[in-house]
């Protein structure tokens, strides 16, 4: 029978292979699912893995989805590495979108002097909004020891309600035929696009710069190091004099800011206005991205692209294969689940042991 045996050291090879293994399992289960549903599995694989990358237009759409995922996941990676469980990125994303959207709505002749500079103000507002929302979590954790998982999650629902209130109430477009939406933002406030005619915007560049910045922060700075020690070995960190309080605040503010930035980019970018449909689950999907990317900036880019393929594949599966769009969620959940299972192999190795031998070993032991 198969037996788990502890490895003397975590295997670096398996740590890299495990996401691939998990992807393979997810694809296998996916193929099984297609067969059970009476759909052509090859067509399914094509929709999920070929169509999203087949031409420039598809790649541009892919980058739109991948950008917020990567931005949020970078922040979360810092959080999870320092053992702070912020799972409310979705809420921080919404508040970031609200703050950025608010600035965008102020645009008009009196702000014309800012020119395109207003985009910077929008993004800054987004970052601050996300940080503020995450700061609530940090404050309650720091002052009152309240569990950050539950508080950050509850704040997701509260943020959603704030958004609903604003777009149904004070911020509703007077000319919007009573639809719950704000005015369409002025062209000057729109996030600049990379190429004319494609929706891909400079957010993608920002995300790539952020990847480099986070890599440096995590692996080349003292603060980044201190954070991670706090996550791995709290006692050692305390002995070394690293403050766990400052780690908590840094992690939450960083991840909140990143989620807020993603929210502002989304609001002033592809959306161009605020509606109740701003939150689409990027904040939660980014948790999976962070894990599948091994909490490493470069891994996160790859995982972010993979997850966006699931998103686009899900949309295509809906329009072309008459499958519900929520199949995306099934695959994303499966991926994280199988990944965690495969991660066992990082710390343990599988040994094939014959029953007889095992029994013999047992008697010898006794």
């Amino acid at each position, binding site marked *: 029978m198969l037996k788990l045996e502890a490895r003397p050291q975590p295997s670096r090879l398996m740590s890299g292979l495990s996401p691939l293994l998990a992807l393979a399992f997810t694809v296998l289960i996916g193929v099984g699912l297609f067969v059970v549903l009476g759909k052509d599995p090859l067509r399914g694989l094509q929709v999920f893995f070929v169509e999203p990358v087949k031409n420039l237009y598809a790649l541009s759409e892919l980058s739109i989805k991948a950008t917020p995922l990567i931005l949020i996941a970078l922040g979360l990676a810092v959080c999870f590495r320092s053992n702070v469980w912020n799972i409310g990125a979705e809420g921080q994303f919404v508040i970031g979108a609200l703050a950025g959207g608010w600035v965008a709505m102020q645009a008009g002749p009196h702000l014309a002097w800012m020119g395109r500079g207003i985009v910077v103000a929008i993004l800054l507002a987004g970052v601050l909004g996300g940080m503020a929302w995450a700061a609530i979590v940090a404050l309650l954790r720091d002052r009152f*020891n309240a569990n950050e998982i539950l508080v950050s999650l509850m704040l997701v629902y509260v943020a959603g309600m704030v958004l609903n209130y604003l777009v149904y109430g004070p911020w509703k477009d007077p000319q919007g035929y009573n639809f719950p939406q704000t005015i369409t933002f002025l062209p000057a406030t729109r996030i600049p696009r990379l190429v004319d005619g494609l929706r891909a915007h400079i957010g993608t560049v920002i995300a790539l710069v952020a990847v480099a910045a986070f890599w440096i922060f995590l692996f080349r700075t003292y603060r980044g190091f201190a954070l991670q020690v706090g996550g791995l070995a709290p006692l050692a960190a305390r002995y070394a004099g690293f403050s766990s309080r400052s780690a908590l605040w840094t992690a939450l503010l960083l991840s909140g800011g990143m989620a807020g930035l993603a929210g502002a980019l989304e609001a002033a970018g592809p959306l161009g206005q605020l509606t109740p449909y701003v939150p689409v689950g990027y904040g939660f999907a980014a948790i999976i991205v962070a894990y599948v990317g091994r909490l490493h900036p470069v891994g996160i880019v790859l995982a972010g692209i993979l997850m966006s393929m699931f998103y686009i594949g899900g949309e295509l599966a809906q329009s072309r294969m008459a499958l519900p769009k929520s199949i995306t969620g099934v695959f994303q959940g499966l991926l994280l689940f199988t990944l965690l299972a495969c991660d066992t192999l990082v710390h343990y190795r599988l040994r094939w042991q014959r029953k007889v031998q095992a029994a013999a070993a047992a008697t010898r032991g006794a």
Partner: protein
Amino acid sequence: MLALAGLGLLVNERAGIVNLGAEGMMLVAAVAGFATAVATGNDWLAFGAGALAGAAMAAAFGVLVIWLNTNQYASGLALSLFGAGFSAFVGIGLVQAKIGERTAYTVPGLADLPFVGPAFFRQHPMVYIAIVLTLALAWFLYRSRAGLVLRAVGESPESAHALGYPVRRIRMAAVMTGGALCGVAGAYLSVIYTPLWVEGMTAGRGWIALALTTFATWRPARVLLGAYLFGGVTMLQFHLQSQGVEIPSQFLTMLPYLATIVVLVLISRNASWIRANMPASLGKPFFPGG
């Protein structure tokens, strides 16, 4: 309903396992229960289906966490995310389905009492079952040998292991019981409480149930009390609305979530109180001989 899920998670956590997948388990169970109710028209079968679905999800979680020693938080999150996607996927055909309003069970004689009558004696049988279950669980945890073993496993798995108790099997049983109870709660939500199915219908109730175990400082009776408190806050929003109070409905909908945060802060402020009651090995993996 919250009480059921809360009690289920309490069993979990008493055995030292945090299952953040409550939301996912409740959603999948809600779909399973609702589908069964639509197909058979029998509520008890629906509860059974919900319990099975919850337990099956919990079993997957348990294998990962208990036998493969994965991170409990991450695995629970995975379960929640998967459950949300899976239930939406499976439930798409049920969105339009309807089942009739369920009639409440009235305790003969007592239901006609003014004021107290409707509140306490005209409820769905599940409500009474939840109350009985609370008492049973309290007895089990504090008065029975098996309950003592369960608590020991949560406090110090090493000691329990040394005494020869099968720690991992006990934890697995606790996790599956918790899943089954969350499942019944999910089925109650879709079959009795609403009764309909919509994507993501639990709207954070699984998480609130998790918070409940903390409020209750891991005591069954306090879970029930907390659940009633939350039911009250939820009802308050409907009453305020029907009274025509001039508050935007969105702020009222926020109430249960804000209340959760407030209570969590109040309880957690007193760290020693939490520490005195929290199972000492909560969230820690256990690998015999490893």
